């Protein structure tokens, strides 16, 4: 099997890179092991919410120089402020082109999203139908009173908690709930009542009038807030509801699984297939060979996978976007951290396992910043030798804390675009 590019990893970084390369006319296969981190994401995309010293960031653009001082190994620092900015703008353009409609802009700075615990948190891009508000520290409400309407007995969303937090932030709220005959059937299986399953029911055409009738009861307010358990496969579902009801409708991410995140993943997958990408789902690399293992630089020749047995894939380029520990891109045993496929060189990390975690749950956890070492073009190394045709992108990289710095999606997008550029430059 010969491809111009093989992408390992079916998350935000992997698909972004793959779709970009397909658009440039390269043939591309993408391997994924299952649900990516997107399935457990907020549905908004963060670029940079805080510096490593904890300082809050309102305008990422203005913070990149300081970030470079504080975190020289951060992927943004490696590629430099100019390039980071250019890639951020490119990512905004591409997402909208691909039909993932997002609000927010790098140039304007962060806005606020609403978390399942009712907190307003900074973010870069939010899907158009997701609840968000302008503002940095304080929200600039367009509304006075909102109705929170939930699905009866849905446990992954607490309107009471969200309402209390919104009240604190100066927004009046009203809570109600509804159920439908089809939901009652779904509920009979005690473990099926989760966001994605509920969305499959509520998205059905025949249920639309019933959903509308229920929501209509709560429209004596400025906007409706719903848990993100509808609109899974129709990006315009929520905006259509909005039109029919005559008031804005917004969804809020629930506890996992995240429908808003799964929706992005599904969308990217469709875009990838539509461009002729070859999908290798539930497959994983088991072995590989270098063309000349003793040369001064290394070049991957063949990759063997679990599903393809002894038939190797012969890619000209490989993109490693396998994610971090959760997605199995990184692996830790009791003494060492490893990049799972090629055992690539990692950024320095402490030898002592004691220093991988902190006792304080809320302290920055060192392991969150572990990952693959790359140069400014996302090129990788093994035992100090450049691997000429292997670029890495996304959470498999090290040098940043995606949680406390709020930069996971931003790093995934910009490193994927740089990795793609790198490949194209070599073509």
């Amino acid at each position, binding site marked *: 099997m010969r491809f111009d590019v093989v992408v390992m990893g079916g998350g935000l970084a992997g698909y972004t890179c793959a779709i970009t390369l397909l658009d440039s006319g390269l043939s591309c296969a993408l391997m994924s092991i299952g649900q990516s981190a997107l399935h457990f994401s907020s549905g908004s995309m963060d670029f940079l919410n805080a510096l490593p010293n904890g300082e809050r960031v309102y305008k990422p653009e203005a913070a990149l120089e300081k970030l470079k001082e504080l975190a020289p190994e951060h992927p943004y620092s490696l590629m430099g402020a100019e390039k980071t900015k250019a890639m951020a703008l490119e990512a905004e353009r591409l997402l909208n082109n691909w039909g993932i409609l997002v609000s927010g802009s790098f140039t304007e700075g962060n806005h606020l999203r609403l978390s*399942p615990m009712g907190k307003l948190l900074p973010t870069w891009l939010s899907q158009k139908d997701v609840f968000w508000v302008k503002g940095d520290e304080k929200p600039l409400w367009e509304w006075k009173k909102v109705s929170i309407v939930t699905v009866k007995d849905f446990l992954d969303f607490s309107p009471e908690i969200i309402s209390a937090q919104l009240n604190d932030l100066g927004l009046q709220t009203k809570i109600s709930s509804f159920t439908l005959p089809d939901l009652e059937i779904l509920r009979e299986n005690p473990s099926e009542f989760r966001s994605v399953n509920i969305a499959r029911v509520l998205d059905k055409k025949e249920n639309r009038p019933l959903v509308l009738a229920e929501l209509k009861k709560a429209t004596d307010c400025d906007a409706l807030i719903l848990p993100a358990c509808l609109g899974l496969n129709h990006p315009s579902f929520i905006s259509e509801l909005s039109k029919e009801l005559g008031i804005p409708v917004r969804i809020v991410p629930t506890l996992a699984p995240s429908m808003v995140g799964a929706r992005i993943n599904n969308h990217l997958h469709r875009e990838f297939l539509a461009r002729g990408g070859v999908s290798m789902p539930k497959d994983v690399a088991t072995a590989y060979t270098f063309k000349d293992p003793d040369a001064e630089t290394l070049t991957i020749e063949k990759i063997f996978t679990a599903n393809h047995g002894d038939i190797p894939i012969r890619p000209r380029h490989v993109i490693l976007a396998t994610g971090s520990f959760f997605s199995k891109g990184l692996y830790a045993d009791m003494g060492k951290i490893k990049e799972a496929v090629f055992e690539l060189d990692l950024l320095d990390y402490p030898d002592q396992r004691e220093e991988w*975690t902190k006792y304080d749950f809320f302290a920055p956890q060192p392991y969150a910043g572990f990952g693959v070492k790359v140069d400014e073009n996302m090129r990788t190394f093994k035992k100090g030798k450049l691997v000429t045709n292997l670029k890495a992108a996304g959470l498999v990289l090290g040098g940043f804390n995606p949680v406390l710095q709020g930069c996971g999606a931003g790093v995934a997008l910009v490193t994927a675009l740089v990795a793609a550029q790198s490949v194209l430059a070599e073509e």
Partner: protein
Amino acid sequence: MTVEPLVLGALERTTETDVIIIGGGATGAGLARDCSRRGIKCVLFERGDLATGATGRNHGLLHSGARYAVTDRDSAKECIEENYILRKIARHCVDETDGLFITLPEDDLEYQKNFIKACQDAGIAAEALEPKDAKELEPSANPSLIGAVKVPDGVIDPFRLTVANMLDAVKHGAKCYTYHEVMAILKEGARVVGVRVLDKLSKEEYEVRAQVVVNASGIWGTLIGSLAGVDIKMFPTRGTLLIMGHRINQLVINRCRKPADADILVPGDTVCLIGTTSIPIKFSQLDTTRVSYQEVELLITEGAKLCPKLTTARKIRCYAGSRPLVADEADTTGRKTSRHLVLMDHEKRDGLSGFITITGGKLITYRLMAEKATDLICEKLKLKVPCDTATAVLPGSGESPDKILRKVAPLAPTVRAAIVSRHGDLAPLVESDTPSASSLVCECELVSVGEIKHAIESLAVHNLVDLRRRVRIGMGPCQGELCVGRATGLMTAAKLCTPDKAPGELASFLEERWKGIYPLNWGETIRESEFVMWLYQSICGLTRADSPNPAPPEHLEDEAPTESP
């Protein structure tokens, strides 16, 4: 038979009673039960939740006594007697697994002979097995074993046991106050007349008077003793245990040699655990002691000798408790400790009347400890009522599981079995006939909305961590990854916490959970940790500012043994 509902937590304050019990571990709850069954009015104060000290931080082993047979026949005898009593009175807390004592090639097979003899002398049925039969009986045991002895070990759930004792006590008139800390022992001359307690939830202090005050606070007994002005010499020793993500073994596996570190592997519900270590600590560190990375490694290396699968099994959590080791008062050097139960009549010992300390012992002898202490209380109150706790069955253990299962028929079979195993014949109190109530919150341990509501309404639950101890939510393989978020919503809906406090509740639970996970930072466990970090810190946005607790120091000062204060 309809099941009579019981409510654990007392709503109104008591200012006068016959007996005050300090400590809500198995011993305290057993004492409350024994006293109230003998018609004595009593009140129990526990500074945290029930079963939070050594009671809830051990193997949960229903000792056969075999472990002590060679070195301490009296303890062994006590164990086997209590073992058979608990099988009868607390069957819903007990899993009658049996246990194996295995001899490995590096161990002395001679020890096994002495061991069997010593067991028989203590009345413990010990049966030598051929290695191949032992391996067939327990396929997870180290295949290189050269000898094995089967003994009547079992497993006991200490949380369930403590709650069952307390429920019986409440049924007979006792009052249970959790989150009440004893701040002072009230004295009049050479007589203890009561205590001053702090209600930690309302932050109010008040006095309660009684004829007898019983110190049943385990290793904290020294501190309570010092409040009364008596010196009780104890040696805090940390014992650490490690929980695996699934149940590898069906029988308890012990090492047939002199007791040492990490030589017992105990199955329990859906998991199994290896322990323990034994590390002296300071009194000042009783509430802050931490599991070390080295202890975890030791538990895995030693544990793998009992059961090689332990090496690769997913590790889900570790925890540490402090044994209530009491100085052997007959020993003049002051360094020897006793594993026996210790009953101190401070009137005789220190000239302070109205004050009793019951400590030492083991989880399995809690009932006997309660019986001895209550006998002494009766003597002081000039009562002659016999003890019936060895024969009266605990709430939950009355009817056989088959009969109870039929009463909760509307639930899915697996959920039904889980509820009956946790609540025994009280299971019908759990609402289960509506889809809302039977909806699952915790999928690892099959905990339903109805069960959580029952625990919140009737079992003195004040926060998510208490809930974990009552219904095992978050105790399974995922350690509360998803269910705890759902439970926070339910607690808020039940008005157990106000919605604005909910993020704090959740933050507290996650911090408590992390204490048992931070040293397990590799393999599958670090994957799960990363997931939880994303979910609650990134998506939900919880930070230190949400937590009601201050940031803990990264390192503790060196832990070292000290004399009692």
